[in-house]
């Protein structure tokens, strides 16, 4: 059973925080510090979902999401933006770029994992349940 989640996050502490919470819940976490690496890993290991930071060096989250959407085999992989961009319009812009979910930082450790699971494919959700 695929339980791999790809987290594209340049901030080491934030990556650690999310990895900690999600691994506690039994997910296998792959981390990438930039967009380019993230795309490579997504294509090679086919994750269950991709958690994407927007503020990234070199290639930002919007570009990464757009690039990921180009690959057919990643079609069904949800992209969940986890970002501290909280200005008006940020959310809409991210969803328009191809993300399926949007979680604002700072995250709430109590609800974070549930929120991620809510964005996963239905069959997976029922299995967990």
């Amino acid at each position, binding site marked *: 059973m695929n339980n791999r989640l790809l987290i594209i996050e340049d*901030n080491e*502490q*934030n990556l650690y*925080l999310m990895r*900690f*919470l999600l691994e*506690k819940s039994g997910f296998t976490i792959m981390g990438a510090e930039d967009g380019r690496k993230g795309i490579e890993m997504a294509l090679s290991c086919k994750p269950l979902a991709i958690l994407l930071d927007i*503020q990234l060096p070199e290639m930002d989250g919007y570009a990464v999401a757009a690039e990921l959407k180009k690959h057919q085999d990643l079609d069904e992989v949800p992209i969940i933006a986890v970002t*501290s*961009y*909280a*200005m*008006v*319009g940020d959310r809409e812009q991210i969803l328009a770029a191809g993300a399926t979910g949007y979680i604002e*930082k*700072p*995250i*709430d*450790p*109590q609800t*974070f994992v549930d929120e991620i699971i809510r964005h996963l494919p239905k069959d997976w959700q029922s299995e967990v349940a």
Partner: protein
Amino acid sequence: MISSKSPTCLGRVLFKLSLILLTFFCLGSPSIRADDRVVSVGVYENAPKIFTDASGKPAGLFIDVIEHIAKNENWDLHYVSGTWGESLDRLARGEIDLMPDVAYTAERVKIYDFHKIPVFSSWYQIYAPKDHKVKTILDLNEKRILVLERSVQQEAFVRLSKGFGLNIALISVPDYKTMFEMVAKGEADAAVTNSFYGKMHAKKFGLEDTAVLFEPSDLFYAAPKGDPQQLLATIDRYLADLKKDPQSAYFASLKRWTSEEVRFKLPVWLQVVGSGGLGFLILSLLVSAILKRQVNTRTQELQQENAERRAAQQRFMDIVDFLPDATFVIDQNKQVIAWNQACETLTGVQKADLLGQGNYAYAEPFYGERRPLLIDLLDQPTPEVEARYKHLQRKGDRLYAESFVPGLRTDQGAYLWGIASPLFNQDGRRCGAIQTIRDVTGQKHLEEALRVSEREYRELVMLANSIILRWSPEGRITFLNEFGQQFFGYTATEIIGRHVVGTIVPENESKGRELRPLMEEISADPQKFARSINENIRRNGERVWIDWTNKVVVDEQGKIKEILSIGSDITERKQAEEQIRVLNDTLRRHAESLEQRVAERTAELAAINDEQRTIFESASTGIVLLRNRVIVRCNRKLEEISGYAPGELIGKSTRIWYPNEEAYANGGEAVYLQLAQGETFRREQQMARKDGSPFWVRLSLRAFDKDAPKKGAVGIIEDITDEYEAAEKLRKAMEAAQAADRIKSAFLATMSHELRTPLNSIIGFTGIMLQGLTGPLNPEQHKQMTMVQNSSRHLLALINDVLDISKIEAGQLDLALATFELRPSIEKMVKLIVPLAEQKGIKLQLDVSEDIGSIATDQRRLEQVILNVLSNAVKFTEQGQVHVVCRTENNHYLLSFTDTGIGMQPSEIPNLFQPFHQIDTGLARKREGTGLGLSICRKILDLMGGSIAVASQWGEGSTFTVRLPRQPGDTV
């Protein structure tokens, strides 16, 4: 009797004879002529000039002449008969070559050609029945007169009669014969014909010529215009020859056709009759000689017999002659046998001219014509004759009458008084009559003068428009004329004998003057009061003003007998005078006030003019009057701002203000188009000073009169160089500020992100530890970790609020408008706060009315506001309740949040919605929130077009009221 008839009989015989001769003449000619030239000649009936004879051949004067010419010229004459009118039409159309007997007129010469030598001269004459009274043309007034249609005499006669102002019924008839027939039958009173025709035919119809003759005219042959056959010159040539020779065919024809010639020129007759007639003549002379001898014998016998009678008659005549009145005597045959000297004096006609004359000859000296007189009425009373006399009276067998005879006294006329009486001889048989005539003209004139004078006097006194009054020195009225009676309203019997005062003179005038003393003064000395004007009174009480002229009437002893007063009513004049006086006063007052107003207005205008000149000169803006883009006038300020000396600009083109031709051209057309529509043209533009340096002006131009562009335009020119430079600085500052703002926004966005990133770790790991995911915490650890968590959450809230405030103030907070139902939104927010309220034991009440519907605004932001206000209410309330009410007011929703919390001091309220303001409760209590919430709420509501207000009582609680438009832009 026989001899008087003979000329007519002879004329008739001769006429017939001439016809026979003419017929021979005509029959003989055709065989002689060669067929050289065919000339067609019009013929109409106007004997003897031209006509058709009994045998159907054309005849007459004109035919004779043209036949003579034709014979010599070898013309083949063809006659075309018709009426005069038809013939003229034919000639005009060229269907005939010649028309005889055409009078030359200016009208005709336009249509026809004429030769030069007239054939005959003719004139027109009026013919009337034998007993006609036509002496002059004036006698034709109101008569029916016949004329030949389309003839020369028609026009001539019309002209003639109009000239005399006559009213004549003119009837056009196609030929002379019909005309004479009509007059003979009495269908008309007279006819106009030419003298030829009249002479020849009048008698036949029982008509005779009158003294009215006119329009002698020359008669010609007329040819169609242009004389295509060239006949006219030939005719002239012949006429010249014919008229020279008394023995020519021309004169022969005249003799033949003119009845006058025929009547008296017996030699012609003798020539024609020949020797056969001579024997008859000798025989008749013999018979008459025998008869004459018998008569002479009888005459001698009678002379003897009458000798004695004549002597007696002579004595009678002497008596008659002696009579002072004009007297004449007639015998039984109405022949004058006496005409006395007085008659001769009266009429100017001598006895010798009248004695023995009969047939009313005695009337001629009086009336210029023979007609019956008074003397003739003795035997034969005729109403017509009687009507000529006035006061005709018959006493016994005598007649008395008066008459007026205009012809006497050298045409001044005379009034005659006549007596006519029959005369009888010894046997008592009528032997004649006598009439005496007295000229009473002098008496008549005297009588008339007397009558006129009397009438004038009567009119003067009785009918005069003056009051004539006679009164005694005692004041009693003795006479008042009819006008006076009517004027005052009394009859003579009512007024005579009464005192003037109390009847026609009031005791006092309207203005108070006493009249009784005046009357006494007048009666005492009328000469002194020859004229007096005083008020009088009518019977009906009406006051009148009368201008009196007083005269004294004295008796033989020189004592005053009466006063004669003649008065004219001058009431209207008096009233008019009064009116004029009042009008004059009014006019004078008007004129004075008008003058005063004019003076005031002039002063005002002068002041205004001064003011305007002062304004013009001292105005802080330039003022210019332009005409065709040339400076007509300008104030000093304009000279100053454009760098010119005083007066230097006048007469210059506005071109001087433009840096180049193109700018000048651009400055023109659009401006003048706008001015022509009566609009004010405004713009800011750069102009050039005298030294060429540019400066900015605000220009406004307006035409004096849009319909009269020539009057020019007035311009206000304001130097705005400083203003312009200031604006430029401001613009640059604005640009800089805007750039700074953009930097600030970007900084905020980055700040927000950068702050959140570390917060993410702090909040995240704190949470993990508090959850015990990293192993159990002891109570102190748990307590402290909770403090970290709360502080970091507060920090996050601060970051969020600061971000919101910054965005709003930078105008970057954009509302996401959507239409949604308001009720669920409110309920959702209340539900969120329920746990907090329950925790504090506060009752939360929600009251949303039924009519709350949808709203168009930013849902998330609205909910943010509701949540903020609601959580404040709960937060600051320790016990009691929070009441949320939602109502509709017009196109707005009103949301009120009422709590039973601590409330506010009035001094705190104004600062309530300022950022970073939190009420200092004075109580040691934990403060929650950032102090930015209400500030943000107010700013959000401002953006939404809504508002927020608060009412509070210290210690009792507060009510926050949010007002929201249903649609953006809906106003209260």
